[in-house]
């Protein structure tokens, strides 16, 4: 099933789960989505909606959901004007400059939407690797590409995101 159909089934649960998780701010270092995805899967299981015959499908889906959740979290925090009080929590070790508790995620989300039209594979990689926390070999297996390709793609897209968010007069937006 396509993402759009599954999302309404899963999204409310994920939001609940993520909200609780993010409030904890337990880890002083990087965001660890592992526990979050554990919860997600288990909630789905309890919903009796489980058994995804295609693992790749499930995980790319979960990654998209995670991105959505974190974006929503950032938007809510912004609306509540809580931004200043929250610590800088990097989305991942590889992108320490990207703060989960702030505008960064909102901007990244928008940038990824633009990129989707041009190069969807890179967007999937960002979701799997940084939002979901998959390892490089895992991501490679799920997308059926080599680990070298994964590294290359990530290097490029990280730089692109950094340029978009942090460098003034940034790159021409696609379309």
């Amino acid at each position, binding site marked *: 099933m396509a993402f759009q159909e599954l999302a309404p089934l899963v999204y409310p649960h994920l939001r609940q789960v993520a909200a609780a998780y993010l409030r904890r701010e*337990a880890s002083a270092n990087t965001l660890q989505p592992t*526990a979050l995805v554990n919860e997600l899967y*288990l909630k789905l*299981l309890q919903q009796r909606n489980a058994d995804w*015959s295609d693992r790749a499908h499930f995980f790319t889906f979960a990654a998209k959901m995670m991105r959505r959740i974190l974006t929503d979290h950032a938007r809510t925090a912004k609306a509540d004007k809580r931004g200043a009080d929250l610590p800088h929590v990097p989305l991942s070790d590889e992108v320490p400059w990207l703060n989960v508790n702030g505008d960064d995620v909102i901007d990244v989300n928008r940038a990824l939407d633009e990129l989707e039209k041009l190069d969807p594979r890179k967007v999937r990689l960002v979701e799997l690797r940084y939002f979901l926390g998959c390892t490089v*070999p*895992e991501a490679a297996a799920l997308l059926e590409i080599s680990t070298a390709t994964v590294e290359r793609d990530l290097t490029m897209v990280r730089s692109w995101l950094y340029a978009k968010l942090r*460098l003034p007069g940034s790159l021409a937006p696609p379309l």
Partner: protein
Amino acid sequence: MNPHEVATLTAERWRRMESIFHAALEVEESARPDFVFRSCDGDSVLQGEVEQLLLAFHEAQQIKSPPAFAGPQRGAFGEYRIDCEIGAGGMGTVYLAHRADGQFEQKVALKVVSAHLRSQFFAERFRTERQILAQLNHPNITRLLDGGVSADGDPYLVMEYVDGRPIHQFCDTRQLPVADRIRLLLPVCSAVEYAHRNLIVHRDLKPGNIFVTSEGVPKLLDFGTAKLLLTGATDSATTRFGMMTPRYASPEQLRGEPITTATDVYSLGVLLYELVTGAWPFGDPQSPITGLERAIKDVEPARPSSVITDEAARLRSESKSKLGRLLEGDLSSVLKKAIDMDPRRRYSSVEHFSGDLQRYLHGEPVLARRQTLFYRSARFAQRNRWGMTAGVVLSAVLAFTALSALQQYGRNQQRLVQVRELSESYLTDVLNEVGKLPGSMKARLLIVDRARRNLDRLLADAPRDSDLRHALAGAYLQLGDIQGRPFTVSIGDTAGALASYRKAEALAADAGPRDWDLLAILVRARRTIAQIEIRGNEYPQAMALLQSALPPARRLATEAPREFKIDGSPAAAAYVETNGMLGNAMLSSANAEYTSTAFERALAQFRRTVAMAEELQAAHPGMAHLAAKYSQFVGFALEGLGDLTGDRMYFGESAIAHRRTVEGLCKTPDSQPAPQWRRTCGEAWGELSWALHNAGDGEQAIPAAGEALTRMEKLAKEEPTSAEAQQDLTIAYMHMGAAENAAARYREAIGHLRMAESRMPPVVQIPANDTMGAAELYLSIYRELAKSLEQTHNTVGAAKVLEEALTAAEGRSSVARWEIADLHRRLGRLSGQPTHRP
């Protein structure tokens, strides 16, 4: 340039950017600008973009992780002074400290929640840890010395300081061989056993929590996640969240199921596995994926001899081949038994586990081995197949059938589903989505049929007393809903639905007294079958079935956990509703039978239901509306008696009942936000006015009808396309007219009744199976209109209207025979009168 061209152009640019970017990174830094310039071949925009990317790459690299948080103030912890930080634990930071009052020279470990983690949640955990540690006194468990609250209000614990290293580091640094590593674990086991004897389960055993002193004495730290076994079985969500390291967590912990001492056995098993092999039994520990899979299915642990590396062998002072041999045989069996996914098959206690370890060390036969052979017996292998959670099996069946059927049709689902309420069934949503495609009925029928056959096949195979049969009950219920649940959108296969519901009922019938889920399925199946039977006018069967649904519903209401829900409602509410349904069945039967005994029976049942609702209201405040709702039905039953006997007294009583409903449902006039509530409220006012009009009290009926009219007007305006909302308004006009008749305001009555008439569809358009009740409505409007016309001396008009009514009534299944007879009677009476000019 059209947009499509722009897109292609940009995609190409992107590719070029990418290839130049990567190529530039290969080039030496000083030569890069030139390389880029040449590669871009005069395209200055492209060059600018690539340069930006390279700059970004460079800058991003410089950024390090954000600095750690500043520690708590020194000098804020009673007589203890902090020396330095020694680690970040599961929920707090640990500092080396010493007593400042000069009395003792002791070095201590001071554990405190750091400022950014300060919260109610952690404070409680701290308290728990303190309580637990205070009880424990064992040489291999860190002793709790003191505790308190800092000047900043943070709780802290003071513990014996263990100068040592985590167990795996200790073993690796000294390159301990396998046997020594096992020996090192024995005191740890003894400590855990001791905790278990004190009814404490640790729940977070991992290498970081087991320190070994330089003398080789292991100590168990960090009881922050421990739990007293007495305080209830299920792990709440908060405690599950508290688990930072799923790596050593047992499958039942991951699922949030009841924790037993076997949980700690599991963790120790994983720990031992790592100590002797240097690897995690289930693959890559960083991956979130294997963690999930462990929770739901039996992930085979890797054979210990297969995961060792040269490095691991070196750290165990052995050659790789020798280590491999060492790890086969009994040790492998012991490990396997310790980390079995099924807690019942693990070592039931740490004592048994360490017993087998000692046997292994002494070269004696281990218990684990014997049991593995037993498992290989065919019977057990079969049971194992159903080891997965039955719910997963079922959704698998349903989802798989759906997916494969969809694939067969080559459908590619692109559209966004706007699902208003989260449905429980994956299959329902698939069907809904398929249903939106043109000509897809066939696909839906196919999917459902396949699913049914797969379920039947499963049922035939399922062992007699297994959980699977119970889970199948739930699945048949779901299937029935899809096939044809009354009052919902379904594929309309009522016969199929009935068969599925009956299967569900049969399977759920042997539910034990505390099988809440199964009892809920039983209640639901019986109720739904009854609903279908009511629709088919099979009243005695429906009533009998509903009667049989009451005992399990009652049990659920009074004994199941408070939060337990049946079909989305709390069990107590479901019990009341089941009683209400029985009343409705009795009322429908009474309407057909048309005897006062039948009505009295329905009345008694509704009165009982209201009383029940009132009684349960005290304990369940959310149920306040139920008493009001069924009070309305008390009114209907009374009206039935009134119609039957002609005795107005019944209508007076009915009015009282309806007034009660209005008061219960419409507390504050326009503050209910949801349209459904306003609708229900409007209906209630309408029924009240109807009862009052029948009781002959026009003066009171009019304001009531007015309330109904106001609400229904609003709703009709808000929902112009809803046939129901429009009909509600028509009914409201009719009620108003009736009220005015009762108050002898005939002119006004005619006005409102004509209004109602004008809103009705033409009589000829009413179908034979008149589900909307249009014929009934016509009858009501025309009866009243005839009355008003008669009273204003327009007999001809009145007769005409009654004839129209007859036309509407005849041949429509929804109209009762006595009503038609009544019309004829009225008509007859009219024609007996001399005609007047209008």
